């Protein structure tokens, strides 16, 4: 009797609990059925893809003849639909670039520093067409524990072949300043540019107009713009915003099917804010590049740029004059392996001695492109008689020497666009 009562109580408990969860169970059943249906659909489509033999080409010719032009350009049956492209058509393309750069520096005065492959910089790149008239590209960079918008500009095609870029941008001065560091073969920044603009890329907020002209076997591009900058080396040492104008010409010629030659010149003029009066900074210079690449992707490049900065210090004070330059030679052994060597030369006029303080550096390195999306660079650089900006960057006293080894590993995920030629 006691056993029967226990059984009855257990049955009541089970029945009540099953009633309580009946709706959830029903819901789960429906979900399982939906999942099973989805699996069947996926299996069917996969079977179609793997088993469908190419239709007789002769039949396809006949079909294509019958197709309307619209049909001719549509995807044939049996082809996988571009699911990912469709799903993301409303989103911007997003890519992330990780720049892991380790360095070991040994300098005058017993200076020693080293780091091993820290994530020195992460770039988050977003880009998409805004509408049929304009495009937006934004690069957010994380470095040294902070995030900043490194670039963010709108591109629009105007009338008469003129292109507009408005917003924050790496300024098109020389060849290197406009390029993202991960796109360069070497791991550091040429000393000449560090001396003229500081260790960071020279950035401006403003408006740039450029117009390419296709003349025979060449492209001649003329650029003009107006921008504000907080660069504290070339302009205001306090980092306050100053305005400047920019003019640039760049020409690229086809020397042969496999070789090109580029030549260009730049001029920048703006108030520098050093003196209370009307003190200006002027930057002028030129660049060149000779590139050769055969069909196996072996080849070489020889490129260089030279820039001079005139920085007025105020009425009655001698204008500071600095030159910064580099000459780079690269040899591509094939698509994956490249050797390079770079010579940096800078000088600064010294009013005290009425002479020039001169700095030079020589680099050599090896770059291994593991795939399209990652590469490793090993570089050695010897700097002699460093000027103030480079000395600060290397952590040595001005006038000192330093040996530096760099190991850089760059990786990219996401749909990263092609780098400029």
């Amino acid at each position, binding site marked *: 009797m006691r056993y029967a009562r226990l059984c009855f109580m257990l049955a009541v408990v089970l029945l009540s609990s099953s009633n309580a969860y009946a709706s959830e169970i029903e819901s789960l059943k429906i979900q399982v059925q939906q999942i099973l249906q989805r699996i069947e659909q996926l299996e069917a489509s996969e079977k179609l893809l793997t088993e469908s033999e190419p239709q007789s080409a002769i039949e396809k010719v006949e079909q294509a003849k019958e197709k309307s032009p619209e049909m*001719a350009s549509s995807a044939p049956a049996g082809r996988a639909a571009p699911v990912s492209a469709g799903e993301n058509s409303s989103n911007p393309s997003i890519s992330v670039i990780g720049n892991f750069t380790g360095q070991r520096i040994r300098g005058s005065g017993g200076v020693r520093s080293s780091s091993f492959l820290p994530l020195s910089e992460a770039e988050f790149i977003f880009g998409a067409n805004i509408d049929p008239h304009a495009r937006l590209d934004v690069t957010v960079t994380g470095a040294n524990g902070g995030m900043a918008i490194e670039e963010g500009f709108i591109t629009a095609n105007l009338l008469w072949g003129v292109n507009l870029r408005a917003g924050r941008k790496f300024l098109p001065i020389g060849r290197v300043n406009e390029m993202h560091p991960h796109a360069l073969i070497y791991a550091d920044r040429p000393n000449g540019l560090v001396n003229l603009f500081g260790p960071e890329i020279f950035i401006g907020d403003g408006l740039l107009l450029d117009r390419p002209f296709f003349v025979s076997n060449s492209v001649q591009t003329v650029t003009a713009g107006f921008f504000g900058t907080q660069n504290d080396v070339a302009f205001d040492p306090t980092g306050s915003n100053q305005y400047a104008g920019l003019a640039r010409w760049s020409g690229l010629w086809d020397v042969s099917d496999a070789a090109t030659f580029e030549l260009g010149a730049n001029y920048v003029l703006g108030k520098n804010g050093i003196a209370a009066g009307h003190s200006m900074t002027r930057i002028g210079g030129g660049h060149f590049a000779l590139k050769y690449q055969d069909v196996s992707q072996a080849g070489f490049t020889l490129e260089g740029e030279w820039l001079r900065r005139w920085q007025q210090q105020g009425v009655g004070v001698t204008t500071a004059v600095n030159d910064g330059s580099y000459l780079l030679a690269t040899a591509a052994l094939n698509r994956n392996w490249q050797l390079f060597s770079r010579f940096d030369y800078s000088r600064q006029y010294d009013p005290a001695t009425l002479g020039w303080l001169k700095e030079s550096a020589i680099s050599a390195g090896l770059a291994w492109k593991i795939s399209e999306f990652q590469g490793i660079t090993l570089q050695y650089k010897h700097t002699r008689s460093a000027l103030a900006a480079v000395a600060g960057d290397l952590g040595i006293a001005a006038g000192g020497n330093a040996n530096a080894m760099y190991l850089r590993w760059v990786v990219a995920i996401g749909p990263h666009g092609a780098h400029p030629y």
Partner: protein
Amino acid sequence: MKLLKHSILALLLLLPAVTHAELHIVATLPALGQIAAAVAGADGEVRVLARVGQDPHFVPPKPTLARHLTDADLLVTAGLALEGGWLPPLIELSRNRQIREGQPGHFAGSDAVEILGAMARVDRSMGDVHPEGNPHWWIDPLRVAVAASALAERLAELDPAHALAYRQRAEAFGKRLQVLMTEWQPKLADISPVVSYHDSYRYFSERFKIPVAGFIEPKPGVEASARHLDDLVTLIGTKNVSQIWVEPYHRGRIAKRVATLSGAVLLTMPDAVEGEGAEGYVAMIELLLEAVAGEQ
């Protein structure tokens, strides 16, 4: 009066040049240029961006190439993102909206033909794969016949005045390829398995029923490791592989080493040869067939 007569004469002389407004067609790859020329004939001027022998994945995007695109009425591409690493900046620089993807002036041959190797899900750990399929379709003559027909329709849409001529040329080209196929196919009967460097020949090998046993690249676009090459040499022995096919732009040193170690014959298999229009395209296929059949 004399001046008027001379002026009329000069105008009459210039008239043919003015009225003959041929289409400007740009093809990304040499073989596509030959197909386009075969269909367009004298009604279109065809220019090509890549050179014969160049890797279609990695053409340097020289800004000077964009000059060909500025006045193009039609851009002919392989499609499936084959040219994705270099073509978009050139289209952008040209500022020609007519040839942007999705516009009537943009023709991707892959949209017209049956595609092999499409994958539902891809990841970069699989190498440099094309998720929508293998883009090297132009190496199959019968798919080219289909693409030529679709191209003729597109040209007819852009230039209705010469629609009939485009269709007739495409039909003649297609029929010629079909007839040639009946001559070509017996030549490659009973070819033993081959190994290729990259998966560039899938359409060719499937069309001519040549089994592909493996690839020198362990994954598309990835350099071969010593272990992979060791395994490949063993595979060549066990599967009785007689030939190693390598694209002109790939690393001959590795392929030569594999050929030396395995005893297989190393063949350079171009995906384009110099030549005009249909003749150039047919010459490329015949060169491949002769090489594979051992007639070279």
